[in-house]
């Protein structure tokens, strides 16, 4: 079990590294080596660490621990073929981590990040529309059942393309350097992670690595179906590269545009689900 966790953290951080490298190459820069993010975490964890005097101390630390715990839970839900609903509940709870990170430090930049995070809560609506679409098609929300359904009927990607697109946008919104990443954009320093430095940042980066791994793997599992480990790894990297292209080529949107686009997507998916519900 612990081996899965450690493996996922390292692979997730490696994926972050590949993401950065790909973005740099697309933009014509050499970019850091792909294991840079792993080194980053080690570097942060060796830094001197304390808690800012203005912070709400308990919350400041607890949020880091909760972030790691939340994504560990998600990983195990995914691996044991548990409930899809639970997996995405965990995804939603990540929102609380974002708020907590920003609010707990007392820094105005962190607070701005948290406020933007509240606004972009709209991005979670496509998620539930996705879940509803999958439920209408497969009749179950257990990931193991969805796998079995795909083994029998072929990948869900073709059956429920709009739902896949919605999930793709949701995954995109959570990537570093994504056009939707308004909560940590640079005009507010580092947004909600501004004050988390040293060990706290190392823990957070580990959690975010876990998050990237879980989200990409969840997309593969949900829409491409069961496949051998090596093939899954290739699929994850390809998926990541497609995301990197979008991140590299699109500017960061303003908070208002972010919310508009995400609500727009959500609206389209809801219409799709309602239509499907009527037709089926």
């Amino acid at each position, binding site marked *: 079990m612990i081996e899965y966790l450690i493996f996922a953290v390292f692979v997730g951080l490696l994926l972050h590294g590949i993401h950065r490298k790909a973005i740099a190459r697309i933009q014509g820069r050499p970019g850091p080596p792909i294991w840079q993010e792993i080194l980053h975490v080690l570097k942060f964890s060796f*830094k*001197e660490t304390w*808690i*800012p005097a203005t912070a709400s101390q308990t919350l400041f630390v607890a949020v880091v621990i909760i972030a790691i715990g939340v994504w560990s839970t998600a990983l*195990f839900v995914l691996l044991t073929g548990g409930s899809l609903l639970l997996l995405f509940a965990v995804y939603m709870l990540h929102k609380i981590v974002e708020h907590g990170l920003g609010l707990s430090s007392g*820094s105005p930049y962190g607070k701005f990040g948290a406020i933007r995070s509240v606004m972009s809560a709209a991005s979670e609506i496509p998620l539930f529309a996705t879940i509803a679409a999958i439920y209408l098609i497969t009749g179950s929300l257990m990931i193991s059942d969805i796998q079995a359904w795909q083994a029998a009927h072929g990948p869900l990607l073709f059956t429920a393309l709009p739902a896949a697109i919605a999930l793709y946008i949701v995954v995109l919104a959570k990537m570093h350097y994504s056009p939707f990443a308004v909560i940590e954009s640079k005009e507010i320093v580092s947004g909600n992670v501004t004050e988390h430095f*040293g060990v706290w940042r*190392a*823990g957070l980066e580990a959690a975010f690595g876990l998050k990237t791994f879980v989200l990409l793997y969840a997309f593969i599992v949900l829409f491409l179906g069961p496949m051998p480990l090596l093939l899954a790894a290739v699929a994850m990297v390809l998926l990541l590269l497609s995301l990197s292209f979008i991140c590299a080529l699109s500017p960061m949107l303003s908070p208002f545009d972010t919310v508009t686009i995400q609500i727009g997507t959500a609206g389209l998916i809801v219409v799709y689900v309602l239509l499907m519900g009527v037709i089926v």
Partner: protein
Amino acid sequence: MTMKKQTAGAVTVAAAMVCVAASAGWRLGLIETWIAIVLNVVAFPFFLVALGLWWNAAEKEEGDTPFIGY
């Protein structure tokens, strides 16, 4: 709220032991899956954070005001 190096080390070791024991117990079929998962989910974050603190426990007595403005 500084943490002594010893405390951090002890937490690291304890959390690591919980994680490894739970995983091993699950592999050997001694522990049910969900118990192993819960133990791992609870212990792993503490392991990571305490490990970092143990590597470089802060010597500073008090916190600092955050860096603000350029």
